[in-house]
């Protein structure tokens, strides 16, 4: 059974194992620096479907199937799915897995969904309620533009601080046994709202939440600041990343050499014209399910703190002049 270390953090004493993982991405992500780490790169943004939304569901479904086949299990071996996405009522996830007949918890944590689902999946395994749980999420550039900004047909101009929503899906299967990377701590974030209301500057809105969760994590675990080989935030982008490391510095946490951001890692922003970098649920999920877990399993990394960040606004709340509430959840993943 786990041990509560503080208000936000629990230690998972059984150390649930990430038994398999997968990431399927779109063409743009496939042209980025991490292209060799993804399971599949899909050229067609519709993925052979008739709408972007159906395409996104297929990304999630195919990734789910890939996780099962890589883990050499069948759907009957999974007790829970934790999944969510960015679309209204999370239809990418629920339509993506509706044929699986596995008990399902739908989540909305915006771009923090990967860490949120992994936290809950690990709790289920730790608590003995599940042998295996799949934690998965997706996002799609075309459906997210429609959901949060304008449909592509509108031909909207991008602003310099905007980020590029990652097209794809990433996920993991967490279970009791095995020799894969293990989940050792979970620090659940609280909502942080610094009063930013610019929807084109999510990095700045989410950076304080990431900083808060990382600071709390170190305070409650008493781990030294250089404990991790890599602290990786979800999708702050280049601007949010520099704000976050500055805020951490102010809190006395120097992580410069081993801090990175999935939004910065996934694209070559100069060459690919993605402005501040990647965003979306799939940003941290595909970097985790593609690159990070691969590096861990090869022991090129031994300990990471995965901090997915989310902006919890809606298009409606922005139109009503509300500011952007942000959240960040941290999960420690270690090779033991």
């Amino acid at each position, binding site marked *: 059974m786990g041990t509560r270390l503080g208000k936000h953090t629990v230690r998972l004493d059984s150390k649930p194992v990430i038994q398999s993982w997968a990431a399927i991405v779109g*063409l*743009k992500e496939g*042209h980025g620096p991490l292209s060799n780490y993804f399971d599949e790169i899909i050229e067609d*943004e519709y993925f052979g479907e008739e709408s972007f939304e159906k395409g996104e569901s297929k990304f999630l479904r195919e990734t789910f199937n890939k996780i099962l086949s890589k883990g050499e299990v069948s759907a009957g071996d999974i007790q829970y799915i934790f999944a969510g996405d960015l679309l209204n009522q999370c239809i990418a996830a629920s339509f993506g897995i509706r044929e699986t007949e596995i008990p399902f918890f739908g989540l909305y944590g915006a771009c923090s969904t990967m860490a949120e689902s992994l936290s809950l999946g690990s709790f289920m395994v730790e608590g003995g309620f599940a042998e295996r749980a799949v934690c998965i999420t997706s996002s799609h*550039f*075309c459906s997210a533009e429609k959901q949060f900004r*304008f*449909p*592509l*047909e509108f031909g*909207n*101009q991008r*602003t*310099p601080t905007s980020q590029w929503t990652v097209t794809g899906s990433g996920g993991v299967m967490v279970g009791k046994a095995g020799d894969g990377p293990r989940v050792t701590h979970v620090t659940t974030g609280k909502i942080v709202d610094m009063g930013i209301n*610019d*929807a*084109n*500057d999510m990095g700045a809105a989410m950076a304080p939440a990431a900083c808060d969760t990382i600071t709390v994590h170190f305070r409650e675990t008493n781990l030294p600041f250089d404990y991790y080989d890599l602290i990786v935030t979800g999708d702050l982008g280049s601007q949010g990343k520099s704000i976050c490391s500055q805020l951490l510095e102010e809190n006395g946490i120097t992580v410069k050499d081993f801090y990175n951001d999935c939004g910065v890692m996934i694209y070559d922003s100069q060459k*690919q*014209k993605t402005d501040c970098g990647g965003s979306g649920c799939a940003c941290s999920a595909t970097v985790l399910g593609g690159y990070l877990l691969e590096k861990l399993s090869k022991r090129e990394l031994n300990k990471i703190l995965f901090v997915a960040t989310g902006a919890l606004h809606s298009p409606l709340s922005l139109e009503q002049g509300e500011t952007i509430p942000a959240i960040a959840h941290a999960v420690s993943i270690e090779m033991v």
Partner: protein
Amino acid sequence: MEFIRAFIVGGLICVVGQVLIDLTKLTPARIMVLFVVAGVILGALGIYPMLVEWGGAGATVPIIGFGNTLAKGVIEDVDQKGILGAFSGGVKAGAVGIAAAVFFGYIMAVVSKPKIKNKT
């Protein structure tokens, strides 16, 4: 010479839009509304017609030219039928543009499929 004048006027109008996108937090939709309203005001004050005179299509094609057309229509209709023209004139003058936008927008939606512009 006419081409160059149109190029200069049209280009400068777009520069204003680009500066607003880059330096302010205005959304593109707000910038568009701002342009139309600016066109109405400049048209009513008689400033925009001078730009049209000099720059031709460079001034009429951007959305700000639509604002000018609205103002022009209202002025003409008010002259003819009094205050009711304030409600009819703008729509009448803009009718061709509005109907064409709906018509061609529909045709294009039927024949084409949206895709990512900057794919790699």
